């Protein structure tokens, strides 16, 4: 029934489709709804702004020269909830989990990976970290101090919008 539309059926194509549809409906395979939902979210997130790749080449190289590269071994903290936020980071490689301390128990909020700007609280002087980030494997990151970030965005005023866009995508997306 998946062959060509028979030439003598051109007049009642819809009946032909109807019969075919009915037959197919009797052998619908099992589909995993949870998998569909998580794949849809993943595809959407992949389309969301990746901070590092959204920067222009000039912005990227300026960021690199104003930041220093730091390597975090798996299991170490990139930042801790409640600490003074004195820097902003971009993950170049590896993944980190974002977690909150809830009455002594760790609650994982989400993960961050290559290209993500993390620790946005460090873009504004005087803020404290709102979450803890722990490296899940070896993480390489560019770490830029808040005062250097302020100078950086004076040169590249388009960047804060990008940061806002990334934050917005995260908020409207799944945590």
């Amino acid at each position: 029934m998946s062959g060509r539309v028979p030439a003598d059926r051109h007049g009642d194509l819809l009946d032909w489709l109807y019969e075919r549809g009915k037959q197919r409906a009797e052998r619908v395979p099992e589909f995993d709804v949870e998998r569909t939902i998580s794949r849809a979210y993943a595809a959407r997130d992949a389309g969301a702004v990746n901070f590092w790749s959204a920067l222009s080449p000039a912005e990227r190289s300026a960021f690199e020269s104003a930041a220093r590269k730091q390597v975090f071994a798996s299991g170490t903290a990139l930042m801790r909830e409640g600490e003074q936020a004195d820097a902003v980071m971009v993950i170049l490689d590896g993944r980190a989990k974002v977690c909150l301390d809830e009455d002594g128990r760790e609650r994982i909020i989400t993960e961050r990976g290559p290209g993500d700007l993390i620790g946005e609280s460090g873009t504004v002087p005087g803020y404290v970290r709102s979450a803890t980030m722990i490296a899940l494997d070896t993480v390489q990151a560019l770490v830029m101090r808040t005062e250097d970030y302020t100078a950086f965005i004076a040169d590249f005023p388009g960047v804060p919008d990008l940061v806002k866009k990334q934050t917005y995508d995260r908020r409207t997306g799944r945590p």
Partner: protein
Amino acid sequence: MPQAPYGDAESLFRAAHKELMRVAYALLGNRADTEDAAQDSFFKLVTAWPRVGGLPTPDEQRAYLFRIVINEALHILRYPHRRWERLGVDTDQDGASWEVLDEQVQARADLRLLWKAIGELPGMRRDVVALRAAGYEYREIAARLGVSISTVRSHISYARKQLSRTVARDWEGAQG
């Protein structure tokens, strides 16, 4: 007492999932495309949630979701070029010979004209016809789209004429 509408996209999608898969699979005929249609539909539902969430009844919400799925399936049927690489695909026909696959490719090329014609039918008529093509009876179509049976009947009757005209013309065009 009227049922309360669904509070979020995921619960609506989960509740309607089996039926959605039945619609998509009946139209698409293979697992890979059906999964794509499902995934894209969920994505669209999330995007449209500000509107769908505000619909007063769960039936209306379900009808909206059906129309999203129909739209996604028709899109895949109309623009299948990128998916031909996975043509193996009528998954229950594992081990199908190359001749069979070849036949399927040709059949799809022919059918694309038909799906194009169906996709170009106006609004509700298009959705009614798509559900008919998915093997549903008139009353089932009416219930799923929230319209009357006589509306379904009249859409199908008009569509029948429109389709045979359009497709006959396009097929001749394609062969001449």
